[in-house]
């Protein structure tokens, strides 16, 4: 069993890093608890695969420590850590049968053949590979191959964490959900810590209990899918999570009014004060498209916006608006009237997030 702790971990591929930009992983602390299902979510190039390889031991971090159950394992090679890793492209041993593939990690440590058989059969059963055991691994389909490479991790009795590096990239869309459900099932059955790297928020939120969102080598937020959606810690999380992403309005206070571009925003006192007290020039208000109230008629405290166009997506539609020169998106359920030409917007105070220098600042709502 393993609790994986990252302590002031940082990594760079350069020999003499000068600025934070030179780091693939910027200094961070993080804990993955035993038995959790975690996702590491971020756009390509944000350092998530690097982080994964550091955990598995394929890379040695340039500074900081990786601890398994409180023990520093920096110097331990992958084979000495109790982890397994599933790669983006299925790695299987072409010339072997599925059975031999699954047995491979056990035979490498000279497990008695009877025990090997027992384990292979058990894992094949779980993965629904029993029928394919005698086949050459080379001729399997991509999803079967990926199951085999996962199976090689599960078959080992000492594995306490499995790391997944975008394992569904090459899988057909209709098989993706099946495999994802299988993963979930395995997680519940074996109580193994699983860390799942992906750039797909849907994959992350269906698989994981908690998601770490990475951006430019840092974990900018670690929380449940709901937390990420409702209270993004960083403008990036706002953009990246949700479809479409969060709206951000750059604001300033002018003569005691909160201005976004050339329009005064109708916001509560709490938000007003918080904006007024900000010391930075980079102040943004964020609101999810789902939480913007859109009215076709003028309403009290409604801000008048221009409707550019609307996109009907079946059960809901996305309305593209301009407010004070700033483009916004709002989501309207199908039973609501879709405005044309002009619309009046209201931002519910409790749904507004204040972002100073891109990070969320809590607002004290009276």
């Amino acid at each position, binding site marked *: 069993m393993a609790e994986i702790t990252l302590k002031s971990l940082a990594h760079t591929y350069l020999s003499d890093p000068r600025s934070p930009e030179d780091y693939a992983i910027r200094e961070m602390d993080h804990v993955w608890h035993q038995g959790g299902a975690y996702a590491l979510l971020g756009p390509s190039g944000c350092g998530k695969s690097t982080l994964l390889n550091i955990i598995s031991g394929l890379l040695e971090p340039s500074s900081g420590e990786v601890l398994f159950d409180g023990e520093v*394992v920096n110097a331990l090679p992958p084979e000495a850590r109790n982890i397994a890793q599933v790669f983006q492209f299925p790695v299987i041993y072409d010339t072997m049968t599925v059975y031999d593939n699954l047995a491979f990690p056990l035979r490498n440590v000279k497990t008695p053949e009877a025990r090997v058989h027992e384990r292979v059969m058990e894992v094949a059963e779980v993965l629904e590979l029993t029928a394919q055991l005698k086949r050459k691994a080379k001729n399997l389909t991509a999803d079967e191959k990926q199951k085999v490479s996962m199976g090689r991790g599960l078959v080992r009795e000492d594995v306490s964490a499995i790391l997944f590096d975008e394992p569904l990239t090459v899988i057909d869309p209709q098989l993706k959900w099946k495999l994802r459900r299988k993963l979930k099932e395995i997680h519940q059955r074996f109580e193994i810590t699983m860390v799942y790297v992906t750039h797909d928020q849907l994959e992350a939120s269906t698989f994981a209990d908690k998601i770490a969102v990475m951006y430019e080598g840092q974990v900018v937020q670690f929380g449940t899918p709901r937390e990420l959606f409702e209270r993004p810690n960083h403008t990036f999380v706002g953009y990246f999570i949700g479809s479409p992403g969060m709206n951000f309005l750059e604001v300033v206070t002018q003569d005691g009014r909160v201005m976004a571009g050339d329009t005064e925003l109708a916001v509560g006192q709490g938000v007003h004060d918080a904006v007024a007290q900000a010391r930075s020039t980079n102040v943004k208000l964020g609101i999810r498209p789902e939480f913007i109230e859109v009215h076709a008629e003028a309403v009290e405290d409604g801000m008048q916006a221009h409707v550019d166009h609307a996109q009907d997506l079946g059960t809901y539609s996305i309305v593209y608006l301009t407010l004070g020169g700033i483009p916004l998106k709002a989501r309207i359920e199908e039973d609501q009237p879709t405005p044309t030409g002009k619309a009046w917007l209201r931002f519910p105070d409790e749904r507004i997030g204040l972002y100073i220098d891109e990070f969320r600042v809590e607002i004290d709502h009276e």
Partner: protein
Amino acid sequence: MSDSLPTTPDAVRQRAAAADNRRRRSARSASRQWRRRGLMAAYIVFVLLPIYWLLNMSFQSNTEILGGLTLWPEDFTTEHYAKILTEPSWYMGYVNSITYVLMNMLISISVALPAAYAFSRYQFIGDKHLFFWLLTNLMAPPAVFLLPYFQLYYTVGLFDTHVAVALAHCLFNIPLAVWILEGFMSGVPKEIDETAFIDGYSFPRFFVKIFIPMISSGIGVTLFFLFMFSWVELLLASTLTSTNAQPIASVMTQTKGASGIDWGALAAAGTLTILPGIVVVYFVRNHIAKGFALGRT
């Protein structure tokens, strides 16, 4: 699987052992690293030693060569090189060799490109048999064709010309080029061709503007092989020429004089034949690592 998981003290001990192991292994892997370098160095020495000896000889006077064994030229001289580079009978050998090699490369690649494209993209009557027959030409020993070639080229009046040798080398170079190029071309998705035709490209324009750039490293590797096999071949080249187009390889046999072999000149001439090869490898060195598998991994 809870029964099979190690208890905590066990796990700790195990991990400590593993860490220990790792330390020992890293020491071992460092020594392995050195063994690896040692073996590589040994092989490089094996490759270079005979060449060094040739170089050594080429800078010695014949009296020094025959006087006794010296590990490096004690009486350093460039007389042999001077002789080769000033006497037309010598240096024309190089000119001739390079001329027919280049001609052969040009002919082979220009007919092999469309042919390889046809084999990689189309099915047609007899395609498989034709391809197999082509490959059998790779297996034909030049010695078999020696006499017929001599007679054929003599009859058509090509004997002792560069074209004769260039054409003769087509025997193995064209099949080789078709075969290598076919491998690379099959690696290019057919959708590329289709998209280009939909975009209104004519076939020749598509071929030159789009397709050829896409397999440029394949072409590089092919040219390397064409150069290699044409440059190193002696039997056909020397049989089909007498004086006007004589390759350097057969000029070298003239070092056998009445007074024995002119070792110095032989060594210097040999050394000079190695140079074009080195130049060619230098240019394609970055493609070799990838392309030598001929698109067939």
